[in-house]
């Protein structure tokens, strides 16, 4: 019995990541971002998402990668998490996949990689390696403060 999970696949720095599709409420092209002064570093600001002010997080910054210029392929994935609507900036997003739950493995122990704490597991589909993101941790403002302190 192979249960399947539908995920949205997106790219950051040539790596493929995945979020369960039921957490995603939309994928948008990048809109004008209004910077919010003194917000944490990875919160790039807010956008007007059909009349709702939505905060935007740059996942590259969140994962501790270098920032890049946004381009035509840059996408904002709108995710819903406990009443919060948050947009995630990713390099590109263009795939929806069904992955067998059995293919998900706990992530290999990687020491010293700051992104590791937001990862809930990895899935190997044919030749692709998808990194599943733990949204709760990725969005948590507290974890970041710890990370910033350590960094």
């Amino acid at each position, binding site marked *: 019995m192979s249960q399947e999970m539908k995920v949205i696949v997106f790219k950051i720095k040539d790596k493929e990541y995945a979020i369960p599709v039921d957490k995603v409420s939309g994928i948008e092209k990048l*809109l*004008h971002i*209004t*910077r*919010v*002064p*003194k*917000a944490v570093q990875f*919160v790039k*600001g*807010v*956008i*007007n998402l*059909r*009349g*709702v*002010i*939505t*905060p935007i997080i740059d996942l590259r910054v969140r994962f501790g990668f270098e920032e890049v210029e946004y381009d035509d392929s840059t996408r904002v994935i709108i995710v819903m998490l406990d*009443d*919060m*609507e*948050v947009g995630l900036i990713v390099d590109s997003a263009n795939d929806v996949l069904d992955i067998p739950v059995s293919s998900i493995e706990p992530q290999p122990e990687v020491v010293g990689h700051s992104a590791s704490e937001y990862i809930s597991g990895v899935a190997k589909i044919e030749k692709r390696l998808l990194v599943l993101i733990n949204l709760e941790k990725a*969005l948590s403002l507290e974890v970041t403060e710890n990370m910033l302190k350590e960094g």
Partner: protein
Amino acid sequence: MDMNQYLEVFIEESKEHLQTASEQLLVLEKNPEDLSIVNEIFRSAHTLKGMSATMGYEDLANLTHKMENVLDAIRNSQIILTPEVFDVIFLAVDDLEAMVMSIAEGGDGKRDVSKVVHQLDLIEKGESPVTSSAAEVAAASAVLDKEEMNEGEYDEFEWTVLQQSKEQGFNSFEIAIELRADCLLKAARVFMVFEVLEKAGEVIKSHPPVELLEEEQFDQQFSVTMITKESSEELQKKIMKVSEVDTVVIHSLDLEVARHANVEEDKIAELDNKGQEKNNDMLPSDVKEKKKQPSVKPASSKTIRVNIERLDILMNLFEELVIDRGRLDQISNDLGNQELHETVERMSRITSDLQTIVLNMRMVPVETVFNRFPKMVRQLARDLNKKVELEITGAETELDRTVIDEIGDPLVHLLRNAMDHGIETPEERLAKGKNEEGKIHLKAYHSGNHVFIEIDDDGAGIKKERVLNKALTNGIITRETAATLTDKQIYELIFASGFSTAETISDVSGRGVGLDVVKNTIESLGGSVTIDSKEDEGSIFLIQLPLTLSIISVMLVAIQDEKYAIPLSSIIETAIIKKEDIMNAHNQQVIDFRGKVLPLLFLKDIFEVPISQAEEEFLSVVIVRKGDKLAGLVVDSFIGQLEVVLKSLGNYLTSAFAISGATILGDGQVALIIDCNTLIH
């Protein structure tokens, strides 16, 4: 069955029924003989009982059931309304409200209501300290107070008998009889006493009742009320002949005095005058006249309930439409096509009409806040032993839902203040030559883009000297400034933080929360509050509020490439200053503004705005205020004034620094709204 989907409706409707019950109870208290009002309350209670039983809230259903029983007995004239009965019913409604609130907040609606249930039970069984007409209230309390046996309780019938027999020349006596402590057959003695009494006249009443006397359910003492043509001496001798009687005390029952005493002891202000009239004549015509259309039921308008969130969604969609309209407008101007131009213009008109409608849907009459006050004032008046009449006008005045939610607490505070410090005790008022009953007038009305709420009392007013002295001792003002203050400025000192003129901290307003909280709340709503007062004549608190919080007037400013909105309510004025006019004071750049030294806040530094343009020789400054403190916010340029829809930054960014919210500009971009209160310390 899953009840959750009905929960919201249940809560809303329960609140409505309880509100109706409280309102009608207050009306009933003024017109105790109008049983149609009882019916109205009964219906509300009945519906509430049914609903809560269906929803499985047993406690709620049980208490409502008890209350319903009492109401049923009242409307069938088995129980006559007394202030005590009113108190218990009010308590029951309070408990019911608390239970519904607990359910609304996600609780289980359980609450210890045994006390109220017990009291209701007592009333239902007719065992309450008081059982019948208002005349007995005083008599009953007298019995309780003095523990005197010779003051009985008389119902309407007994009163009539007593009165008529007096007119026919009979004497009315209250006779207290004490049997000897070693009396063995008490019932037999009682029988003998009664035999003597019945030969002499007619026994109207006994205390305890005859049944209990026959069962020996009394100590050594009992009392009777009788009418007779014999004198008290003769009676006494006759009774004393019965063996084992220790003492006999006979009082002549003076109907006039008794009735008068009743009235004086009646603690309820509202019932006061009417109680007296009631004893003379059950339904004097002027009481009837005083009824303010008691049973006119407000015509139920055809409405549907809409969740405010849905309205928010509608509003958001609508704003999208407005933004697209702006773009269409632009395109049609560029293309210069007449047909397109006309269509776009028509669409513009329709959208502005729609905008008005959407905004109006969020408007709620202040009634929803005001209607909890009569009950509160009634209770406070009782607690403070004052007589107060609350008059409410303009309850139909509409305010945006967002303002309505916030304005309740400040109003409660001001009303408490008026009751506690404003209105004097009845004695003081009489001494001042005023009407015994104080008056508080709560008034709401529209004016321009604002709603005004006035709280006007005819109480003691504010004593200037006392306010000044207090402000001086508390270090709020200096002696020099004190001399220059106008009356109004002095009154306004009571809004300063840490100020309280109450000599003794009372239970009502000495809760450690001063009027400064009221002022802050109202100002945070973009409103203002002022006071006027005349010693011994009363005070007026005037609150000015914006019609809505969701739309505010702002000044849009540019800081480098970013746009920010500053609420007009915080802005005093704008100014352009030369760079060389800036002075330095303790690492703080300041300017001289009309003789006042103002600190300058460079927003581009505070907000860490990326610099893209060179600095100019002139600085654009927005002078803002927080309370009486001023500051100059330095921006790059003024864009202009506009009305914007206020939006929150959402649940994720709950604590953005110095930002109170955001708004969407005509081009679809987000502009942040600056919170001047956090910028000025």
